[in-house]
């Protein structure tokens, strides 16, 4: 069973909150819900919508044909009436016009109850619940429970809405166990706290801002700091300062801010100060389409910063992966004194995913800070290239530097020392590669003989599409640097046919695969209109590609 609901209207009409309430009604009853958000770069007016996919089985993506359109303005109907299924319905206020319209006289009902205008959406929620086939009690319970303060006439409004329409649909019974319902950005925030983060530094930018807000709201309770400096250059420089002083530090941004951070991220490479960066991609270049999605920064992340140095890039495919990959990011950054980038995007960051459970993370917080020994060398050359980390304030002088240096951290221009230090830094790649093999750098979904290759937020739509593509399996590449070349190469060689799927215009992972494995994937399904794939689109385009 699957039900698809479109909820939309003008910005400021309470669409996000209404969507969360409806989602929660279903996840509380034990259904799996996926929520896709689309909004414009404005504050009031315009056109925003959310798409819910609801099922009694796990779902990870949305589709564009709807069982119900929950309309808060005429614009939504005008744009999306064509996407309504033949047996679907549009629910909305009586002044809205559309096919299969269930009109509700919201104004009259509010007046009759003497209720505030704000309760209009709750009347419509009640009506939706009845039409789609839910009992009323749990709906009232969930909606009431979602507000901290008691709201007069809330329950009455829901019931009034519920009673004014007829039941139109049947739902399969779910397992009854409430689900976790969480966005990628929320999961990254929680992952950071679980990693023992001390400091999050960021400048506001869509679509990374929700992490800034989420962490800021939790900083006192969980005893860490969230700081918003004057620009992204200051963000990255101050983060390196804080980490040098011993704080477990993460920064977050999107492409435009990431561009400004490039020089400081190169400084990370030379200074070897641990740093975690969350890069949430949006549609570029430049200011692009700022509230929409893209996977266009993959090679930018892998190549960020001038000079050659070790970088780790990990791309989570859903909210659960966001949580665990963030924990890995902190661990690897501290252990190897490297730059670790969590490469997300608007889609994985702002969509809500549902899960039965989260397993206890195997990795525990560790700063990898040691008491300095006598004759401490900040850049001691060791077998695996990792120098013991110490912090200022202890017995030894601790140095960090942007210039090439000797083991003590003093500036050098001598050719032998330049070579030695480059080798030391790059040596870290060897152990990192080994460690990453244990972190599931690639994952094979499905059992077909033909192969889809992708990464990051396309996972949801591809996994959901596999149900209708029985010949196909899906290789999800999660670690982009160090690149699991052997694993990817083997899978490509073992498959009858290979299709690359990416949410960008040129197939960036395809380039990296070619560079790392010598394998060139010619069949590509690419999308670069700022919108993520739906599973229906994947099925259609993959079938077209193999014709």
């Amino acid at each position, binding site marked *: 069973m699957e039900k698809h609901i479109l909820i939309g209207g003008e910005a400021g009409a309470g669409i996000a909150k209404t969507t969360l309430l409806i*989602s*929660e009604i279903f*996840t*509380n009853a034990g259904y799996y819900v996926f929520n896709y958000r689309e909004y414009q770069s404005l504050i009031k007016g315009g056109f925003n919508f959310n798409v819910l996919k609801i099922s009694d089985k796990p779902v990870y993506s949305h589709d564009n044909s709807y069982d119900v359109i929950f309309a808060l303005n005429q614009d939504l109907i005008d744009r999306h009436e064509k996407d309504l299924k033949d047996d679907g319905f549009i629910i909305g206020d009586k002044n809205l016009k559309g096919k299969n319209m269930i009109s509700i006289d919201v104004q009259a009902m509010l007046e009759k109850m003497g209720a505030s205008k704000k309760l209009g959406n709750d009347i419509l929620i009640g009506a939706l619940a009845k039409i789609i086939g839910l009992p009323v009690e749990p709906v009232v319970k*969930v909606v009431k429970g979602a507000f901290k303060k008691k709201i007069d006439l809330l329950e009455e409004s829901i019931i009034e809405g519920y009673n004014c329409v007829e039941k139109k649909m049947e739902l399969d019974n779910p397992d009854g166990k*409430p*689900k*976790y*319902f*969480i966005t990628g950005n*929320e999961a990254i925030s*929680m992952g950071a*706290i*679980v990693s*023992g983060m*001390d*400091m999050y*530094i960021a400048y506001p930018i869509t679509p990374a801002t929700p992490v800034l807000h989420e962490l800021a709201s939790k900083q*006192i309770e*969980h*005893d*860490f*700091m969230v700081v918003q*400096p*004057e*620009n992204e*250059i*200051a*963000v990255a*420089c*101050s983060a*390196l*300062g*804080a*980490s*040098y*002083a*011993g*704080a*477990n530090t993460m920064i977050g941004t999107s492409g435009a801010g990431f561009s400004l951070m490039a020089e*400081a991220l190169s*400084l990370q490479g030379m200074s070897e100060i641990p740093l975690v960066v969350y890069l949430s991609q949006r549609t570029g270049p430049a200011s692009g389409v700022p509230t929409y999605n893209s996977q266009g920064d993959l090679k930018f992340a892998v190549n960020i910063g001038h000079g050659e140095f070790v970088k780790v890039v990990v791309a989570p495919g859903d909210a659960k992966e966001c949580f665990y990959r963030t924990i890995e990011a902190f661990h690897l950054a501290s252990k190897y004194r490297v730059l670790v980038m969590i490469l997300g995007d608007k889609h994985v960051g702002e969509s809500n995913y549902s899960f039965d459970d*989260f397993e*206890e993370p195997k990795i*525990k*917080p560790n*700063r990898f*800070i040691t008491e300095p020994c006598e004759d401490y060398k900040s850049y001691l050359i060791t077998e695996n290239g990792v120098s013991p980390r110490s*912090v*200022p*304030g*202890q*017995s030894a*002088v601790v*140095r960090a*530097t*942007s210039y090439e240096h000797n083991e003590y*951290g*003093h*500036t050098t221009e001598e050719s032998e020392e330049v070579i030695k230090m480059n080798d030391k830094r790059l040596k870290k790649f060897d152990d990192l590669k080994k460690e990453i093999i244990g972190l599931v750098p690639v994952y094979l979904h499905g059992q077909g003989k033909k192969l889809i290759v992708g990464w990051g937020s396309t996972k949801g739509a591809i996994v959901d599409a596999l149900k209708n593509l029985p010949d196909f399996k899906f290789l999800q590449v999660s670690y982009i640097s160090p690149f699991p070349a052997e694993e990817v190469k083997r899978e490509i060689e073992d498959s009858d046919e290979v299709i690359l799927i990416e949410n960008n215009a040129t197939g960036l992972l395809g380039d990296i695969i070619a560079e790392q494995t010598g394998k060139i994937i010619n069949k590509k399904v690419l999308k670069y209109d700022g919108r993520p794939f739906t599973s229906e689109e994947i099925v259609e385009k993959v079938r077209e590609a193999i014709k």
Partner: protein
Amino acid sequence: MKAEELNTGEKTTWCPGCTDFGILTSVKQAITNLVNDEKVKRENVVGVSGVGCFDKIYDYLNINFFHALHGRTLPTMFGIKLGNPELNVIGFGGDGSTYAEGMAHVVHSCRYNEDTTFLVFDNQRFSLTTGQATPVTEKGFAGPSTPLGVHEKPINPLVLTLTCGASFVARGFALDIPNLTKLIEAAMMHKGFSFVEILQPCISYNNTIQFLRDHIYKLENHDAGNYDEAMKKALEWNYCQDENSKIPTGIFYETNSPVYEDQWPQLKPWHNVERNPDFRKLLAEFKK
């Protein structure tokens, strides 16, 4: 402790006779005095530099040190203070890096008023890159990148920092080591953002030694608590080499104002914090 203990033994690569040596001597003496007076702990002193001739001080001072990027001394200092508020952070910048590449940070560090000290080596030139004009170069200077002459008036860093809310503003002279030492000590002891401009003639690209010796005077009977007086004194020299220039040195302004760190009840030396977060409790709010 003796000041010599702060030597590193690294070979100096400043020009022979560079006035930066005067600043190095003052910094070493100031830190030594404060350590000996038990006002700071040596292990808690952290230097921060950007990139320019001045940055070489990184290699000549045996203290914790972060040698950061061109123009980015200030945000790096800011981060270190947030990472461990017990550290005594002393930053070094040049007039080129500070007022050209990194100007935004100057405005904000003054505004934040974090408890750090910032010394600007001001020779009114980009010397390491062979003597181009900076934002503090005198009007009319014809240099390698500005053969037609600098058209703009120089900015006045003291007026700027006073305007932006710095709680300690001073000017020293690299060749007056005893007074510069006192200024640096006072700056490091001041609670809040301490800005010290150090006039530092470049013997290779802008040798203003004689001009400065002829026009510099020490502030006396000056009320450093009076903002308007400080501003008046700051405006006295326009950074050009006019015959009748009068260049005051000393502490222009010092006031107690809330420091950045005060707003954070949770701020502490983070590296000591033991953490054992309960992931299930944390995720409970998302179970709906």
